[in-house]
């Protein structure tokens, strides 16, 4: 390796700096939601500083200053994020370090290093979001960086703000020519799923692993897609309101905080009986957790082969073997309308203990305990007790709201007897605690209820706002039975979905939010007719996203092996195949691009071709051109050697020089090309004439 040989110390011009800063700004904009505000402010200031240095032609800051800035950056990230490792901190560091690197941008070498790192910075945004929009932007910005590199290497652009049109065309051409090879490499590069699988950070949204009243209601305004479900075409699907997607089960409750947690893993031996089989394909964005969603109740051994395998774990929930650090797609089969019951028939004693346990039971107020006792006495059987509690919710003047206000420490009694308003988690936790107090084994199930059907793409979208909590109680003979107390209070929540609840809430709570209904229900101000249009557009966009996910996620190790017929191949052989294909394709690409450009070259320089022919003719006739001779000097000499052909020689040269070196209209050039042809014709004739007598 030899050092860079194109003058590495050439100074950077103003426009070159502005263009690179532009690329940087575009890249940072892509990370707008991934970096903290203080860092954004800092890099804006640093960029402004760099611009001022350029404008005022002052010196760049010293190494000490830059090291100090880098130190502050590390410190800031450490304080803000708690670590300097991982994806999120790494991105922030990179954003900051590039800004500092601008402060030592002096030469070509720095310029290229920044450009290359910008490629990476841009690419990293795909680790945060793999949507079609972000991908498009990443491609665009990579194109911009490439165009800027090209501009840097063409002299005329050194002093211009924007690269010329020709340059953009060149960039586009190169990027397009690179695409086929890129696709082949993409298809053949051996995929090793989860080879390292380090969780260097993923965006956590949606459900939290524990549950405290207020957790789920915070999600009601979150329109983000939680996941997408597709069913086989023409399958018999349950109506959206009875779609209960199970995520995980909460066993443990701490009464002092009214907090439910998953507790330790409990091995149950359950089976699902009855109902009908329904296959689902679920597309799930990265959650960083291991839970997988499936309709109640998922099967352990699905009859069709899944492309992505989960296991049934504690609480009969589907778990992934690894945390989901990327968007995944998996198949699962559920028995819809079936029943979940222990294989043994009876609840094993250790499960029963777990399902009745209340930590810090003593903090529960006497009134609640008395109430639970009354329910138990009135209901007698577990099912009877459940019925009593649900009846209390239905008739006790309860109201369903996402803004129940702040409860005191003794939430249970305040909720049950005083305020009587809450979201699904209030009802579910209250009911589960009452059941346990009454001696009925039960647990909380966290998941999603309801879905939004997209008729264009024939799939369902489940949003974060659909997050839900319900109770599963153990009823002898029947097994684990789902009870949803929310449906007692707000049938609309179950039947229509959170949308309806939002409307209701909006009407109820307009005053409380100081006349800002928009904050509560963000589509409130939209006129009716536009609502329909927006809804339509929303559904169409969902369809595009679904197709995109399908495309992006469907290519995995299994489908690669299937596609390339590599099922039986060892890993080494697969790498060898990749290598061979890559080399062959790279060669083909080079040849193809070369050929494309040759053709273009030929088409453009019609006069050069004729000039070569002219040289060849005269050379054969005994007047070869000397290497250094220009057209006019050569014509002079050739005419003196071949006086008989002097006229066409001068004629040709005159036209040639005009076409080649003088500015002119395309029509004039075409006329001159014709003149070249005529002169060549005459020359050929004359030379043949003069050659034949000597031959005879």
């Amino acid at each position, binding site marked *: *390796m*030899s*050092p*860079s*040989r*194109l*003058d590495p110390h050439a100074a950077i011009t103003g426009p070159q700096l502005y263009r690179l800063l532009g690329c940087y700004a575009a890249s940072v904009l892509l990370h707008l939601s991934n970096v903290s505000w203080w860092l954004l402010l800092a890099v804006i200031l640093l960029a402004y500083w760099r611009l001022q240095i350029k404008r005022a032609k002052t010196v760049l800051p010293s190494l000490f200053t830059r090291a100090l800035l880098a130190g502050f950056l590390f410190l800031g990230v450490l304080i803000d994020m708690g670590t300097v490792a991982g994806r999120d901190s790494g991105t922030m560091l990179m954003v900051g370090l590039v800004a500092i690197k601008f402060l030592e941008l002096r030469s*070509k*070498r720095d310029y290229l290093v920044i450009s*290359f*790192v910008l*490629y*990476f910075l841009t*690419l*990293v945004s*795909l*680790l945060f979001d793999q949507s079609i929009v972000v*991908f498009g932007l*990443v*491609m665009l910005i*990579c194109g911009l960086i*490439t165009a800027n*590199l*090209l501009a840097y*290497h*063409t*002299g*005329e652009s*050194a002093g211009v703000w924007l690269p010329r049109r020709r340059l953009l065309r060149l960039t586009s051409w*190169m*990027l397009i*020519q*690179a*695409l086929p*090879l*890129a696709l082949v*490499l*993409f298809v053949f*590069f051996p*995929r090793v799923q*989860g*080879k*390292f*699988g380090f969780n*260097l950070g993923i965006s956590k949204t949606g459900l939290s692993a524990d549950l405290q009243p207020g957790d789920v209601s915070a999600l009601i305004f979150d329109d983000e897609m939680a996941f997408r479900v597709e069913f086989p075409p023409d399958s018999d699907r349950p109506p959206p309101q009875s779609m209960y997607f199970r995520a995980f089960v909460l066993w443990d409750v701490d009464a002092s905080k009214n907090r439910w947690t998953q507790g330790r893993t409990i091995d149950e031996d359950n089976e699902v009986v009855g109902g009908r089989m329904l296959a689902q394909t679920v597309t799930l964005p990265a959650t960083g957790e291991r839970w997988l969603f499936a309709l109640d109740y998922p099967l352990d051994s699905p009859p069709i082969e899944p492309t992505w395998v989960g296991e049934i774990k504690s609480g009969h929930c589907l778990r992934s073997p690894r945390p989901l*650090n*990327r968007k995944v797609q998996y198949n699962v089969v559920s028995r819809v309308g079936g029943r979940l019951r222990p294989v043994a028939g009876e609840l094993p004693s250790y499960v029963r203990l777990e399902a009745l346990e209340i930590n810090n039971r003593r903090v529960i107020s006497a009134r609640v305990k008395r109430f639970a006792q009354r329910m138990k006495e009135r209901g007698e059987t577990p099912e009877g007790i459940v019925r009593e509690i649900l009846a209390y919710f239905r008739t006790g003047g309860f109201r369903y709201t996402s803004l129940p206000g702040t409860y005191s420490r003794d939430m249970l009694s305040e909720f049950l007897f005083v305020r009587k308003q809450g979201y699904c988690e209030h009802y579910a936790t209250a009911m589960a605690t009452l059941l346990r107090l009454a001696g009925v084994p039960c647990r909380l199930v966290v998941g999603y209820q309801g879905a939004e059907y997209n008729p264009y793409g024939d799939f369902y979208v489940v949003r974060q706002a659909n997050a839900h909590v319900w109770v599963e109680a153990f009823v002898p003979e029947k097994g684990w039975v789902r009870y949803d107390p929310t449906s007692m209070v707000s049938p609309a929540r179950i039947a229509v979905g959170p949308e309806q609840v939002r409307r209701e809430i909006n009407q109820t709570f307009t005053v409380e939010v100081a006349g800002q209904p928009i904050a509560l229900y963000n589509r409130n101000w939209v006129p009716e007719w536009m609502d329909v249009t927006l809804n339509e557009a929303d559904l169409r966009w969902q369809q595009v996203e679904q197709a995109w996910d399908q495309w*992006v*996620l469907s290519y*995995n190790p299994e489908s690669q092996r299937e596609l390339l017929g590599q099922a039986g191949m060892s890993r080494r052989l697969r790498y060898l195949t990749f290598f061979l294909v890559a080399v062959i394709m*790279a060669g083909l*690409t*080079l040849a193809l*691009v*070369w050929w494309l450009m040759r053709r273009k*070259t030929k088409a*453009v*320089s019609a006069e050069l071709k004729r000039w070569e022919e002219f040289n060849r003719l005269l050379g054969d006739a005994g007047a070869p051109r000397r290497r*250094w001779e220009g057209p006019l000097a050569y014509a002079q000499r050739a005419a003196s050697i071949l006086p008989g052909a002097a006229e066409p020689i001068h004629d040709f040269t005159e036209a040639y020089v005009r076409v*080649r070196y003088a500015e002119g209209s395309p029509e004039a050039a075409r006329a001159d090309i014709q003149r070249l042809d005529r002169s060549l014709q005459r020359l050929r004739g004359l030379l043949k004439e003069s050659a034949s007598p000597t031959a005879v």
Partner: protein
Amino acid sequence: MGRVRFYLTRNSLVLGLVFFAMLLAAINYDNNLVYLILFWLVALVIVSMVYSHRNLKAVEIKPGAIWPVFAGSELRFGLQVHNQSPQPLCALVVRAQLNGEEVAEVIDEIGPGDTEQILLVAEAPQRGLYRIGGVRVDSEFPLGVFGTSRESTLAQPYIVYPEPRGESPFPDIIYDARDQQSGQQSGGDDFDGVRAYRPGEPQRHIDWKAVARGLPLMVKQFTGGGSGRLWFPWQALDGLDMEARLSQLTYWIIQADEQNLEYGLILPDRRFEPGRGTEHRHELLRALAVYRQPSP
């Protein structure tokens, strides 16, 4: 012109590291989109090789003007870089070995079919006859990821005259019979007009006032009254070593030429009849430049 060669640079290494980091990210997160962009960039680099190759393939280097110089002054070597293709050529660095010193000139762009004149400048420390060693064109077009270079077969000779230096006065003048009335050979006081400055000439007679007015470099010419015949014999400089002798002879020739005198040169192995004019001067200086002690 030779083949177009590719070589890796420090920038290749940097981009290689960036690509490696991208690959790790793609594998770790199993992210198809990262794979796709990574391979797209890799393919872009491969495609750019064709562009680099074309960029240098169309370069033709022709020798341009080269002026003889005196040792100790600057050697200026003109080169014509011609673009044979209908596309513009970009980011060329032309480099040549001049007296063992590498000199380079950057050309940002040459239009289709155009020729760019460049001037390579180097110190000329030693008298003698040389050849330009290895003219090479380098480029990092289009992306700066790797370098391309192409050697030229051009082997242009050039000459460095001895340094004009010496204290000794002119030897005796043998006056021309035709022009007896003038007895002064050194009367270079009569202004005789100006002519263009030739690179390599002493700067003593440059018309600096004209330069200050923005005019090109001109040399004031002075003539003495008459023209005599001068002989510069090697033997007249007995006390000096060889190089000092050559320098003295060079100095005399320049002086005589400036004063438009007729002069001849006698070397141990050659003899040049008196004459005047540029051709004559160059012939004599050339003989001094390549002079070698005849073997005894």
